[in-house]
């Protein structure tokens, strides 16, 4: 059985009465035990909102409007208060975007570990100062940090170190699923590579399931098993990571891929995606990507395409679905 199953998830922000911004629309998603999935899209596509919905971290004005979220067979979508809080131990955790802002500037790192361990302590847990330091040192070691960090304040650490501390904190309750929300956005390329390597190692060693949220498709492809591409609140493509750089895909995925090139190549061409994503407070007619899409046809403006099989995964595009069929027929004729 899948560890996480979400069906028909819709999330809306209601910044003022009568105004609704549909940030996540009709999302179906499953996450297997030990699977590492990427969630990719531009700013404002709803990827972070979906990550928060899946870990039940949405706060007003965001609200889970409809949908079922099952974690390990239990419906966590409708849970509240203490019942939900108990799920967080050995359950699901979230690593926030900015390690700097996620830590309390006037508390030492040891204090952060103490906070979590005491809040979720079970009878028999050692939450004395020595117990916390021992466990904290263990967790810091797993993210390749020295135990000396325990006595430091967040401002004494570099950006990469702070991000590693946030990851260690997420590991403290031994979650079976971790959502990483842009864990390396503010870091430079070398530190980013090192932090991602640590995340990948931890995921392999400990076998937790993980969702990596990022706008950087290139980085996500390097570490994940499967990639979901989001556009305007919907998942428009879901493919195995190793398959994504080849073949036909949703035009949006292809456009994202065009934003990358090898800096060592003889001729470097860099693509962008002109235009902006649609306003999600307005009703969407047809495929939301149509205004920016080079392949758009009349049918795209008329109805929203469903996620249908394409290549080894699924994509929500009429034009590509048809091209995919032609390709399959051609190969069966041969």
């Amino acid at each position, binding site marked *: 059985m899948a560890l996480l199953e979400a069906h028909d998830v819709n999330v809306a922000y209601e910044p003022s009465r009568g105004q609704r911004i549909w940030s996540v629309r009709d999302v179906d998603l499953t996450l297997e035990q030990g699977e590492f999935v990427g969630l990719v899209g*531009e*700013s*404002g596509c709803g990827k972070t909102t979906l990550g928060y919905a899946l870990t039940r971290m949405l706060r007003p004005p965001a609200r889970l409007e409809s949908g079922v979220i099952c974690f390990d067979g239990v419906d966590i979508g409708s849970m509240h208060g203490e019942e939900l809080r108990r799920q967080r131990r050995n359950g699901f955790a979230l690593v926030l975007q900015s390690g700097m802002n996620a830590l309390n500037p006037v508390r030492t790192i040891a204090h952060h570990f103490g906070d979590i361990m005491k809040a979720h302590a079970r009878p028999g847990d050692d939450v004395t100062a020595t117990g916390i330091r021992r466990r904290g040192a263990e967790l810091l070691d797993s993210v390749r940090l020295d135990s000396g960090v325990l006595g430091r304040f967040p401002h004494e650490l*570099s*950006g990469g170190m702070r991000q590693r501390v946030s990851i260690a904190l997420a590991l403290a309750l031994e979650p079976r699923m971790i959502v990483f929300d842009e864990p390396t956005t503010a*870091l*430079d*390329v*070398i*530190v*980013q*590579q090192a932090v991602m390597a640590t995340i990948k190692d931890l995921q392999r060693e400990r076998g937790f399931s993980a969702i990596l949220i990022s*706008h*950087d*498709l*290139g*980085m996500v*492809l*390097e570490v994940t098993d499967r990639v979901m591409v989001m556009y305007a609140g919907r998942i428009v493509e879901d493919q195995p990571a*190793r398959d*994504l*750089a*080849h073949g*036909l895909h949703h*035009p949006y995925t*292809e*456009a*994202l*891929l*065009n*934003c*990358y*090139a*090898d*800096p*060592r*190549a003889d*001729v*470097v*061409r*860099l*693509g*962008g*995606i*002109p235009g*902006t994503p649609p306003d999600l407070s307005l009703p969407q007619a047809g495929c939301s990507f149509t205004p*920016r*899409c*080079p*392949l758009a046809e009349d049918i795209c403006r008329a109805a929203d395409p469903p996620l249908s099989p394409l290549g080894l995964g699924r994509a929500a595009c009429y034009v590509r679905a048809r*091209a995919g069929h032609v390709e399959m027929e051609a190969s069966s004729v041969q």
Partner: protein
Amino acid sequence: MSSDLSPDLDGRAVSVPPGSSVPALTVTGVSKVYRVRGRERKTVTAVDDVSFTVAPGAAVGLVGASGSGKSTLAKMITGSERPTAGSITFGDVAVGRLRTGGLRKLHHQVQMVFQDPYGALNPLHTAEYTVMRPCQNFLGMSAGQARQRAAELLETVGLTPPSQFAAKLPHQLSGGQRQRVVIARALACDPGLIVADEPISMLDVSLRAGVLKLLAELRRERGLSLLYITHDLLSARVITDEIIVLNFGRVVERGPTKQVLQHPRDSYTTQLLDAVPNPFAADGAGSPAVRSRT
């Protein structure tokens, strides 16, 4: 759909405007040492004996990871920090000695585009007002003239039609649009050199090409010199003709961008190259342009 950059930006030599043999910017033996607060008199050398020149109309990349001293250099070039040793001259003005009045004249010539478009704009000022200010301050324009120039500049940076963007506040703009306002403001007083400190690192991958393309066009059309500071070698490759690789404040490698990236001699350059995310590298699928398209 992909907005390809023109081939002449591809690391090839760019003709220097005639009659301008004086380098736009000369940095000679510059060092910056910071004293660490506290009892022990510790010091940190952020920049260590760096020399380079930026010719008029040239685009030079300063490349390195965090802590390599590239932003400190930018601060010294724009006059917000003073070098501990060495000299920085712009045309025939020594930047390091300037006081308030001189700095004002310098900023007429040297403008900066910052990393964080969210932090670089006053949240209470409209795009139009932001761009009008330098026109009034540096060019002595009246409000009416400045308003007209602001509209032209917004159009230049691709915020068209300008009337639609003029009254927008920063929070009503996307990250890419905000960065375009920052660029329009930098262009307002017709500077000779733009120092761009990681101008695309906070933007979505999909918006980066657009901003890079804009900077390249401005350079070509206005004969601007560009000092482009980044940790991302892909964007450096696209926009600069020469790069200088910095590590711990020292220059470890320099040369024509294409040559340095294709044949790096320093291990640090190789490390930076390997860290660039590239979905096509692992399996040799080739660049996206090579892939067959329907």
